[in-house]
């Protein structure tokens, strides 16, 4: 008997939309447009059409000019390139980088690597919901600040930053602005024409596109050093044979990813989930009640050990925080950064809904969560105060 299994980990990755799979397959086998798009023969030209179409689709989705989209292997590489490339290319301006402790590891660990190389890092403050104010950012900016890197949608809590206000401040202060928007596309509107931004990290696989392909939006006129050298693809910013099928899928996925259409559907599922969870005793929401993306719900179950809860819910794919490379994740740096104790941080779960989540999926998950929370609370009855606060 195959047990029921529900996927609520869309923030870790999404299945590839069947229409996207179709677009990818067109660029594969011997009858597809499989050639190297850099080749000047007709096979190459046919492949290039897919690249050009996709670049247009991606640019259109974020309101960018077509030739400001530089393909990479994903948001991790985009983040690295944004930080390392910008800091290295702008040393005449200074060596100071601002980011926040709420960022994804692709930004945080890169910032630490830059620090090892002699750059200076400031972590900007945020409030208890994980929101960064312009006042807080203003305090962190120095005369030698080169770049501010702040994510759009937090991948653990779904908290949404006010990019317009932060971008305006950066522009006023003559500081470059990078936004990690890996979680945004298809969930919340993101238009680079609406605010002042220099670099935006994108990835396909969080928006029903394939894993292993992403892009860095590079505003025209930006100065950024390449990180990977070679055939000078992508205007020399990023060498390496362009992966036609990946890019075609990326383009198709972004063409389909309309937040105006999908956002409300996601919000409905998330709200259904929260309505069922919040009536359980000792359950609290992490993040901000309104400044948030519709696809993520991060919840603390006081008095319930997190690994045990996830293990009990073996039929529900959820996450302790970001999909990380360890079976025993450390308590989330994001939640601790928002003031939760280690115990409460590790008693927290990230639920993330997506295109294929149904109302009955949520009903099932609610039933299972209630069962297991009660079971584990009974098991832990008598546990000390620190497990619940």
């Amino acid at each position, binding site marked *: 008997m195959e047990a029921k299994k529900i996927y609520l980990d869309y923030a870790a990755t999404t299945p590839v939309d069947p229409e996207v799979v179709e677009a990818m397959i067109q660029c594969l086998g011997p009858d597809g447009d499989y050639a190297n798009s850099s080749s000047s023969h007709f096979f190459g030209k046919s492949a290039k059409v897919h690249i050009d179409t996709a670049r247009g689709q991606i640019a259109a989705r974020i309101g960018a000019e077509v030739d400001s989209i530089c393909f990479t292997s994903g948001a991790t590489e985009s983040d690295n390139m944004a930080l390392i490339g910008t800091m290295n290319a702008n040393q005449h301006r200074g060596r100071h980088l601002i980011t926040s402790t709420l960022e994804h590891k692709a930004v945080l660990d890169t910032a630490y690597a830059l620090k090892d190389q002699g750059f200076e890092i400031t972590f900007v403050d945020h409030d208890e919901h994980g929101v960064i104010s312009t006042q807080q950012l203003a305090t962190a900016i120095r005369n030698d600040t080169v770049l501010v890197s702040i994510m759009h949608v937090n991948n653990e809590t779904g908290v949404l930053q006010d990019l317009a206000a932060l971008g305006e401040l950066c522009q006023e202060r003559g500081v470059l602005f990078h936004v990690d928007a890996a979680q945004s596309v298809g969930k919340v509107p993101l238009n680079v024409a609406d605010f002042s931004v220099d670099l935006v990290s994108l990835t396909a696989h969080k928006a029903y596109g394939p894993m292993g392909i992403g892009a860095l939006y590079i505003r025209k006129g930006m100065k950024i050093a390449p990180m990977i050298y070679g055939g000078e693809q992508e205007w020399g910013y990023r060498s390496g044979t362009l992966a036609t099928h990946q890019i075609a899928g990326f383009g198709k996925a972004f063409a389909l990813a309309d937040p105006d259409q999908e956002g409300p559907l996601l919000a409905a599922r998330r709200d259904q989930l929260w309505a069922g969870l919040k009536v359980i005793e000792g359950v609290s929401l992490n993040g901000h009640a309104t400044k948030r993306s519709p696809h993520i719900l991060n919840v603390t179950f006081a*008095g319930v*050990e997190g*690994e*045990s809860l996830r*293990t*009990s819910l073996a039929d529900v794919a959820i996450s302790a925080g970001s999909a990380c490379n360890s*079976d*025993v994740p450390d308590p989330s740096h994001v939640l601790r950064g928002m003031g939760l104790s*280690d*115990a409460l941080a*590790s008693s927290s779960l990230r639920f993330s809904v997506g295109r294929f989540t149904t109302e009955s999926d949520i009903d099932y998950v609610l039933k299972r969560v209630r069962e297991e929370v009660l079971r584990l609370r*009974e*098991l*832990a*009855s*008598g*546990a*000390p105060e*620190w*497990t619940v606060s």
Partner: protein
Amino acid sequence: MDYESEVKQRFLSPNRVKSFEEGIAGVVSGESSDRTLNVWVRFQVQVINGLIRTIRFNVYGCPYTVAAVDWAAEWLEGRETGALLDLGMIDRRKELGVPVDRLGKLLLIEDAAAACQKKLERLTTQDGN
């Protein structure tokens, strides 16, 4: 995580969880906890004629910890109280398939058992007075 099937089984359906009502004769409880390890363990043992007749536990911790407590309770039941100092979790870890980085959590189980033993000793001493 890929838990060994014994760990999984014990974690998902632990026996001996329901606590004793208060005031039952011969029941002592002992607990231990470590906030950094995110573990709390409590045993309640009912001792009759120097033998552990019944044991109950509660635990807040990871699945390995829960499974190991469940094993420990089962192992203790029916033994002489001296066994409370003889859980030997260091040796037992591998058999249960618990990764070595969880050993600290397992040792807290020994502490909780030892706390029971201490209470029993005090009881015995009081009785002897």
